[in-house]
Structure formats: structure tokens, C-alpha cells
């Protein structure tokens, strides 16, 4: 019987010493993948879904325009509007906005500028066509319609 009474001196606790390391690993993952948004979006944004998406290769060449109905219709009206950086702009202001964005790039990259337009899916085409026309005026011809992946 003595055989079974042999006292084991291994501890019953699960070692948790590695727990902080695991959590830190997760933490670093989120810190690295996080992009803090630099401007608050003031328009409704429900991005349309599509399948044939492509990624943009160079982030620094991209400028964003947000289009949609303002979140605060009392102040800004109920019609879809264009937001660039932190302010609403009129269609005529697009040229100035693109010129400013181009000014931030190096000389050889100026015509590589890509405008990513994030348009709410309830918007009509008119305002999008206006943006495209202004982009052609300033020779910023690369355009991306932001969309999210649709699972088929």
C-alpha cells in the first residue's frame, strides 16, 4: 500500500508567468495594425460592397475624400456633401484640395497621386461625376472607389 501513498512534490498550480508575455504579444499586434484616424468623419459612411477589390500599394500617395449626407443635417443640410480633411468643401474646392495634397509629395510623385473617394451608398452619381471632372482638370487621374469585400 505504501506505493500509492507516495507523496508527489510537483505543484498543482498552472504557471502563469508567461501570461503577461502572451498579452503583450496581442497588444503589440494591435498597436502595429492600428491606424489612428486623423480626421473625424462628419458624413454618413456606409461603404458599398464589391468583389473586385484591389489594395493600394503606396499609402503616402493616397488622399481621401468623403461623400455622404452630413451627420448633422440641421447645421449642414440633408444633401450629400464632400468632406476633405476636417471640413466640408464645395465642388470647386476640390481643385484646391488636390493641389494642396500634391504639394505634400515629391516632384516625381505628383502625378502619381491617388484620390480615394469614400462614398455613402445612398448617394447619387451626380456628385461623384463632379469630383471626377475636377480630378481630370488638375490631372490627378488615379481614382479609387472605396469598397468593402462582399462575401458571395
Amino acid at each position: 500500500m505504501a506505493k500509492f501513498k507516495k507523496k508527489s512534490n510537483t505543484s498543482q498550480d498552472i504557471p502563469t508567468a508567461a501570461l503577461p508575455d502572451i498579452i503583450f504579444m496581442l497588444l503589440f499586434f494591435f498597436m502595429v495594425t492600428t491606424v489612428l484616424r486623423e480626421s473625424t468623419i462628419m458624413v454618413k459612411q456606409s461603404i458599398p460592397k464589391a468583389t473586385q477589390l484591389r489594395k493600394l500599394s503606396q499609402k503616402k500617395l493616397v488622399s481621401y475624400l468623403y461623400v455622404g449626407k452630413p451627420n448633422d443635417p440641421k447645421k449642414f443640410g440633408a444633401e450629400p456633401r464632400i468632406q476633405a480633411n476636417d471640413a466640408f468643401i464645395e465642388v470647386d474646392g476640390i481643385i484646391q484640395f488636390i493641389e494642396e495634397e500634391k504639394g505634400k509629395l515629391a516632384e516625381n510623385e505628383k502625378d502619381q497621386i491617388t484620390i480615394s473617394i469614400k462614398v455613402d451608398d445612398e448617394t447619387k452619381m451626380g456628385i461623384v461625376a463632379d469630383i471626377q471632372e475636377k480630378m481630370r482638370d488638375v490631372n490627378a487621374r488615379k481614382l479609387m472607389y472605396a469598397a468593402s469585400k462582399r462575401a458571395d
Partner: protein
Amino acid sequence: MARSGRKLPEVNSSSMADIAFLLLVFFLVTTTIATDKGLTLTLPPKADPNEPPPDITKNQRNIFKILVNSSDRILVEDEPMTDVKELRSMVKEFVLNFGKADEDAQALYNALPQSLKALSLKNESSSDNPKEAVISFKADRGTSYDIYIAILDELQGAYYEIYGERVGLTADEFRALDRKKPDEQAKYTAARNGFPMNISIAEPTKIGGK
């Protein structure tokens, strides 16, 4: 050398996990994972006001017309269409038609994989060859953006599927090719060679909307 009995000094690290959790939750809440994806398009250069617009010499059979009106009804090659999904196969058939192939186009055709050759109907009243074929897409200012994106998605999808099949990839793999790597760049050019993505987006009509 009798040091085995002495304990090493230890910092109490049991609350470390709690601190890390706190930080983790903060980042989880503030994160919006960047979705820099979308449909890419290159706009045509601005028309020179001093020059008259070029005469259109294209044959009607080389143009695949898509019209959308302000109430989101679609007209494809003068026929109404209800399901956007049908567009992809129609566009593929149109582009791969090879109705009147000249020497270059014949060489292009011969190099195609069997699966794409099968789609070629050699219809006299459809496009001559992929270089000539143009998809003309015209919307109205009152067309909803949703429909516009759905159609553009199908059009680009048709081309990407053709490109992918030419180099033995799926459309998804083709789109993910990284053009900074020489071998993937080579595949990209090989796939697109002779098949320009001629999607022409016309200026919208002004019936609906402002």
C-alpha cells in the same frame, strides 16, 4: 559554494497581466482596421479645349453599351436587364469574340488557354478583337452609387477573370499580384498584353439629380 539554499529576489509581477490587459482593451476599442481597398480606375486625360473632339470611327459592333437611367434601370446593348450578375459572362463573351481577327489578333487567340477559346463565338456582329472592343458605361446624375459600383465591379471582374485565366491564376490571385516583384510584374504584363481594359465611363446624363 553552498548557494543552493538562497532564494533569488523576485519582483511581484502578478499584476503585469492586468496592466497589459488594460492596454490591450484600449487598443481594441480605438482600433478601426484600415480598409484601404476598393475599385481602382484611371480617368482619361482632360480634353484639350482647343482641339475638336476626335471623330469616332469605331464600328458599333465593337462597342458594348451599358446605360443606366435615373431610376436605376439598366439597358445593356438595347435590352433591359434586371440582374447585374449576368453582365460578367456577357462582357467576357463580347471581349473574347474575335469576330474579324487580323494577324495579330489571330496570334493572340492561338495563345489563349482552351477554357477561354471556348468562349469565343466568332460572331460577325460582335467585337472584332480584344484591342478594339470597348465597354461603354453611361449613367445618369440621378443613378444611385450602389448600382454604379455593382456594374463597375462586374465589368472589372470580367476582365480580371480573363487576365487570371491567361496566366493560370484566379481573378483574386491576379488582383493580388505585387507589381514591385519582378516575377509577378512579368505575369501581370503577360496577362494584360493585347487585352487592354477598355472600360469607358461616359459623362453622365442630366435627367435625374441636380
